[in-house]
């Protein structure tokens, strides 16, 4: 287990390193002066000079990269071009909105999708299975940003049941929760269908395995066979899927935050792109990607915990 974790951790660190390298080199693939590109055409001469010094632009590229990595490791992601505030502080202000949205969005999808898939697999071709099937294809087919727009149109503009924009008054948990409903619904919806299908398919596959037949031949209760045996194995690919699909979740979050004007990481990146505020883009993208890598690492660990064969593998 320890060896497995060490290896996964090392790989994740390597991937993050490469991500930084990509982000960093993006600047140099574009022809022109890096400072001007990074700061955009609106930046003043003064700002450009300051930026050049701050980023050690006079140093060789590989040194600049090492300096960036070194700074990033100490939590320093550079300065905001306009306000001169540390990028790290700005990201920390915003990340809570994103994490709560992702948590609630993924949470309701998991709580609904996995049981639905399970029930559908236990009784294939029952009405519940059919309804789940139609529902899941339907929800998968609608892109999440369209769900956001339409949900906004129906529940906020047309019915006026829920607030359309913002994240709620700071400090008022109730208000913040109400503001969370629509975006969380929007980003979680397609996941309900996705998870239900995935769980159903892998449950059906596992239900055909010899060891399930063994469990039934020993007269175990159906409940035990389904939840203690089949789900125990079928959940593994689902965990991988949730981990890998988390990237898509972040993409959905970006849209939801923009559409519902929610001041999270996605909105931060978008606004920074519009303002060509590259230090913010760089830092926030790094954090978003790092978040994803961490989630994948977590899901791998979870699988190792569930499956002794993985735990003891290389």
């Amino acid at each position: 287990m320890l060896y497995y974790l060490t290896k996964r951790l090392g790989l994740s660190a390597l991937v993050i390193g490469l991500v930084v390298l990509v982000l960093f080199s993006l600047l140099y693939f574009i022809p022109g002066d890096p400072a001007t590109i990074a700061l955009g055409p609106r930046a003043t001469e003064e700002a450009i000079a300051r930026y050049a010094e701050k980023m050690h632009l006079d140093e060789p590229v590989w040194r600049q990269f090492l300096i960036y990595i070194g700074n990033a490791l100490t939590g320093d992601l550079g300065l905001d071009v306009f306000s001169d505030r540390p990028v790290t502080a700005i990201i920390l202000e915003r990340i809570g909105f994103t994490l709560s949205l992702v948590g609630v969005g993924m949470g309701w999808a998991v709580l609904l999708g996995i049981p639905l898939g399970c029930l559908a697999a236990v009784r294939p071709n029952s009405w519940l299975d059919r309804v789940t099937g139609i529902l899941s294809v339907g929800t998968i087919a609608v892109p999440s940003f369209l769900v956001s727009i339409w949900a906004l149109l129906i529940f906020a503009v047309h019915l006026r049941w829920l607030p359309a924009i913002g994240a709620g008054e700071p400090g008022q948990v109730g208000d913040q929760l109400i503001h969370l409903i629509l975006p969380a619904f929007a980003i979680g919806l397609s996941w309900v269908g996705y998870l239900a299908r995935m769980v159903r398919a892998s449950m059906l596959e596992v239900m055909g395995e010899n060891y399930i037949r063994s469990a039934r031949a020993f007269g175990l209760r159906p409940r035990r066979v389904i939840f203690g045996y089949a789900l125990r194995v079928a959940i593994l690919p689902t965990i991988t899927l949730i981990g890998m699909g988390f990237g898509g979740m972040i993409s959905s979050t970006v849209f939801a935050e923009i559409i519902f004007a929610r001041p999270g990481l996605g909105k931060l990146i978008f606004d920074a792109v519009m303002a060509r505020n590259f230090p913010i883009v760089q830092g926030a993208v790094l954090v978003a990607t790092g978040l994803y890598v961490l989630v994948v690492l977590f899901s791998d660990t979870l699988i190792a915990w569930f499956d002794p064969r993985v735990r003891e593998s290389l």
Partner: protein
Amino acid sequence: MPQDAAHAPETLLDVRNLSVDFRTPRGRVKALRDVSFPIRRNRIVGIVGESGSGKSTVLWALLGLLAKNADVMGGEVRFGDRDLLHASEAQLRATRGEEISVVFQDPMTSQIPVLTYGRQMLDILYRRPNVSATEKRHMAVEMLRKVGIPDPDRRIDQYPHHFSGGMRQRAGIAMALLTGPQLLLADEPTTALDVTMEAQIIHLLQDLQKELDATIVVVSHNLGLIAELCDDVVVMYAGEVIEAGDVREIFHNAQHPYTRALLECDPARINDVSRKLPVIPGDIPDLSKALSGCIYAPRCQRVLPVCRETLPPDVARGEMSLARCHLLDGPHRDSSWPPPLDVMTVGQGEGTAAKPARAQRDAPLLDISDLSVQFEVVGPIQARLKGLTQRHVDAVLDVSLSVAPGETVGLVGESGSGKTTLGRCVLNLLPSQAGHVRFEGEDIRNMPEGRFKPLRRDMAMMFQDPVGSLSPRKSVRALITEPFQIHGIAGVDLDAEAERLAEMVRLPKHFLSRYPHELSGGQARRVGVARALALNPKLIIADEPTAGLDVSVQGEILNLMADLQAEHGLGYLIITHNLPVVRHIADRLAIMYLGRIVEEGPTDEVFARPVHPYTRALVEGVPQPDPDRRRVHVSISGEVPSLLNRPKGCDFAGRCPVAQDRCRTEKPPHLTMTDGRRHACHFPLG
């Protein structure tokens, strides 16, 4: 079914007129038709049949665990006062595991990988609310001890993948017996195991049956296992019981032509070593089509016109004995059937081909000397992290072996013995670390592919899995002409070549347009032979040439190979674990254990007087298809050690019944005896 037997008091379970259909895209397959037989208390009943006979379907029908596309069309399964075929799911569940339990065919896939044995066994005991968890665990540990798992206190907390195949099957038996069932069903319990392990499991089942007074049903295709283990035998063919009876009646006085033919085809029953093996012509019938008359008529040697029209009567002999054949009763009764046992009733192909004159032994075609192959088990980084010093294992160690033109050498060993690795290494499919491999005098070991390629025309390989070794999206025609394209042989009419090769391996021409998945095992094997022979090679390495083939058809392939050898003077290196088969086809045998050859010599001498204790164990380990020749005890115990822990002395010392101190400290060298046989044993058997 004789009525008196069905109602005899000792009948524990009675199958009556069981019929099962499978719904398939090709239509309804009548998989079981009117199957009836009793299972008598305290006896071991064997259900024997080839693939497609429906023997496993019977077993699953007893438990009510048939596949979802199965329909029970009629019949009943009496168990006590219940009919299991029509019992409710709750009743069935109460029966399963408690009263009737199962040992499964493949212990690798039938035990859930993510739960410990302790957890799995506790689950089986869930119906005992009055027994505490500690007591249940104690029961489980004791049962594991009883089936011969060492250190059960510790091993009960391990997962299935920590157990070797043999140990897993022992654990499977322990799980099945945990609740003390009245009836134990065993589905091909030794098929996934090696010979020495198979012998151990057979004896374990026998001992447990005596000790627990259990009734056991064993489903198997292995006649040796049935003869050795069972008291009563039910013979099935294409979904029908065609004969049933006491084990001695079946093996010594079979009444049905199919039973008779099946027994004659078993190479282990043929005492005279002959180069030609008997074969039952034809395939099992397509059960999705309308059936009439005797199901065996299309393949029967004694078929009469009436057989094709009228279902033969069940002719009873004794308490549970019957045979379903027109020859035995009624107007077509033939008093000369069955003929005495020494008269063969099935053919052996056209005339016995003469053995080709053997080339001089001093000019071998293939000459392997001191070959060693190592596998890397852990990478350099991981080895350092885990503090391992040994990164490699010797899969093949100091092997010397030669094959002369026109000679057949059998390379025999259990799984993990390195025999397949050796074969692949000869063909340069794997790199080797030391020694020499000479082909017609030229050292070809680790030769670069560019230089080796022309040699591939002279050496060909047949792989273990007949269908799996054919590229799935190529037609048979493309497959057997591919060697010409690979070697850029110009000026050949590919179509003509395809037809020539098809004819050579006796594959009808219209098969040329088929794809591998449309072929039976025997047909695919022929395609493999055709591919191997396309470029007129001199040496063929055949890895388990009869794997996956039923007894009644494996002779076809072996006879074909023998004919081709006689015709072309081929040298064969046959890699196999199947001793009865290799005994009939090999001139010389080499026995491998843990990567080393422990004994080598002429086949008949090795069988008659094994020198190495392991060879003796192997020879004795084959269950004899004769109930009068049952073994009293198993000659070797234990398991093949892991390559990672190769013993310091003789590799076999840990399991050897005659091992002495020297064997545990000093590796025996290869010695040549005065008669030319070689062995690696400090204390060769006299």
